[in-house]
């Protein structure tokens, strides 16, 4: 009881001690980032696989807050192959956006810092490690090699500049050499038409407040695509939009990706969107990757209990339920993460070993990886958990895989549990 009290309450002295320690750490990191004229050799690196556009390798991004260090991204590794779409899913606050912001170095400074790991970015003729780059150098990558579509179209455009000027700005900055004002304008109009804005000449002269949310999101997309970036990060690009516009935007992204052959890192918590868009899926939970694989692996053979729970909590067309399934409990406190599996307290398929330290990654197939004790020895954990075994057997059939029989029983079980508590 006393311990619980201490957890929520921070004495003034302790808070000061924390912020002093934070300042020491962040000042040092900031100083390193703010250096000017850093030799390129310091951050040049080599891709492990030249077919990848981005490789995240053991990325750690921490936020040094006054309440303590929040490990928003804690050892994340995955890669985005060239020309493919990688979907990153997980619930709010699990580190999806922070991962992508680390790639752009757009974290809230000075609290947010990449403290460890590499982010290798393939620039074609060379590769760089974004995690080691100073601010000055990253500037030249943004908008040019990596660009981002933000989740808030309503507030992502500067209200005092005209749409045309805002897009022109990107083109002039990266592709402007030898282009006259007319050429830049022509390109902007072309981009606006490409994202399906009918009245492109008119919109060119409009201010953001004169457009609807869907239109603004299109403008944001046009802006992100202006310089044919190698990697596009789409951070929940459809969350703020209604379903019809959402479908249009998704279609648009897909067709554009094929047109300019870039890779997309697609961040969302909408599994339906992921199923439609992604070639590979990464499932994150509390700052770590719990499962990753091809879209087929994840949707037809979900292995981690969290992924299974996510799949169960999405509504299925044609099935009547009173209450949608939700995973019990909540994400652990980001300041004091437990030293065992982060999902253990919410997991319905725990085994004895789960009390041990955080499980490491297990390969289920060359593409499918999961961090769970249930898959530690051999492939089939029948002997440990009958429910899981049943689910595993069902998973053999791809057609049924999306809603394995035992999953619904697990869901029902939980609903009863939820009602009692």
């Amino acid at each position, binding site marked *: 009881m006393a311990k619980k009290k201490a957890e929520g309450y921070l004495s003034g002295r302790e808070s000061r001690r924390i912020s002093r320690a934070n300042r020491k750490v962040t000042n040092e990191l900031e100083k390193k980032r703010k250096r000017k004229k850093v030799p390129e050799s310091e951050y040049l690196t080599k891709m492990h696989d030249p077919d990848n556009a981005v490789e995240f390798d053991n990325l750690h991004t921490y936020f040094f807050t006054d309440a303590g260090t929040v490990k928003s991204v804690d050892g994340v590794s995955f890669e985005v192959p060239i020309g493919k779409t990688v979907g990153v899913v997980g619930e709010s606050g699990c580190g999806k956006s922070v991962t992508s912001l680390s790639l752009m170095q757009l974290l809230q400074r000075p609290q947010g810092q990449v403290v460890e790991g590499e982010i290798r970015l393939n620039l074609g003729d060379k590769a760089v490690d974004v995690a080691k780059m100073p601010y000055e150098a990253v*500037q030249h990558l*943004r908008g040019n090699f990596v660009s981002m579509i*933000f989740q808030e179209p309503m507030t992502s455009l*500067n*209200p*005092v500049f005209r749409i045309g000027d805002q897009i022109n*700005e*990107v083109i002039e*900055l990266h592709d402007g050499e030898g282009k006259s004002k007319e050429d830049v304008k022509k390109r902007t109009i072309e981009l606006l038409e490409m994202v399906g804005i009918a009245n492109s000449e008119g919109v060119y002269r409009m201010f953001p407040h004169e457009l609807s949310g869907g239109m603004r999101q299109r403008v944001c997309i046009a802006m992100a695509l202006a310089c044919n970036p190698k990697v596009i990060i789409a951070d929940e690009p459809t969350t703020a939009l209604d379903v019809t516009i959402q479908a249009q935007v998704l279609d648009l992204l897909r067709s554009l990706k094929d047109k300019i052959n870039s890779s997309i890192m697609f961040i969302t918590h909408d599994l339906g969107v992921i199923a439609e868009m992604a070639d590979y899926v990464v499932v994150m939970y509390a700052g770590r990757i719990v499962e990753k694989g091809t879209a087929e692996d994840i949707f037809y053979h979900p292995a981690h209990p969290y992924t299974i729970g996510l799949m169960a909590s999405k509504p299925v067309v044609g099935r009547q339920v009173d209450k949608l399934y939700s995973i019990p409990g909540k994400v652990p406190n980001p300041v004091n993460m437990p030293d065992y599996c982060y999902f253990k307290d919410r997991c319905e398929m725990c085994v004895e070993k789960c009390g041990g330290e955080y499980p490491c990654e297990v390969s289920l197939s060359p593409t499918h990886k999961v961090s769970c004790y249930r898959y530690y020895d051999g492939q089939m954990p029948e002997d440990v958990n009958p429910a899981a075994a049943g689910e595993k057997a069902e998973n053999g059939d791809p057609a049924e895989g999306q809603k394995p029989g035992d999953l619904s029983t697990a869901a029902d079980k939980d609903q009863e549990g939820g009602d009692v508590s």
Partner: protein
Amino acid sequence: MRNYIVKRILFSIFILFFVTLIIYTLIRCLPTSYVETMAIQLSSKPGSKSYTEWLEQLNASYGLDRPILVGYVSWLKDFAQGNFGDSWRFTVPVIQEFKSVIGVSFVMGAISLILELVIAIPLGIVAATKQYSKSDYIISASALVGISLPTFFFATILKLVFSVKLGWFDTHGIVGRNYAQLDAMGQFLDKCSHLVLPIVTLTIVSVGSLMRYTRTNMLEVLNADYIRTARAKGLSEGKVIYRHAFRNTLIPLVTIVGGSLPGLFSGALITETLFSIPGIGFVSYQAMVAGDIPFTMFYLSFIAVLTLAGNLISDILYAVVDPRVRIA
């Protein structure tokens, strides 16, 4: 746009009517009366009429025997015709007295406003962009000191240090002792040196609030999503701050600057009085204390007109800097 301005001006005239009515009523109710003072003086002369007789006669000749409302209407009639009357206290036409003192007040106000803007806005931006750094703490702390300093206290400290101890400037007045012997250039420099301390006082005392205002607005804008978008475009930090963020910070600043327009002409009562500078603030204070109705009425109505004009200008400027605001 034109309709809007015409409408606003008509409104302003309406407001002005009530403002002057209230001012006139208040002045007539003041315990100090020019006429009474004069009656006492005249009746104390040997062989003169009694106090009450003098009072009656003076009241009649100055028009103070009429009821307040009647007096107001006749004042308003004159005012509307551009006839502001003669100042009782200074015994010259109001306009003439006003013209002779407004210059120095305007120069002081204008210079301190410009200094204020030039100091406060860049410092506010620096403090915001380097939030929680040493420079931010220094700037914020000194802004707070500036805000908290009362004018009379700070002016006295300045006088003590720079006039009494160091002897760099005179403590009082607009011209030095040997002003008459100087050539034109020397006279100009003499006046300038006498204005240094008042301007420093005015600037330091008012710079703090504008700086804190800039800092707060800048911080808010810097956390906006469109700033992140601007960074994601690959713009340099300087462009992000001075192009994308500053244009947005300008919006609230314009209101403040538009609102400070009357301050240019209203003079600084306390500062001018402390330094004995014959500016409009000092002179209007003297007029008010003496119960000089024509001059006080003129001065206060003038400030009211400027305030209304300042509001109108800042509203129009709003529409200029913020495309979301359309005046209709």
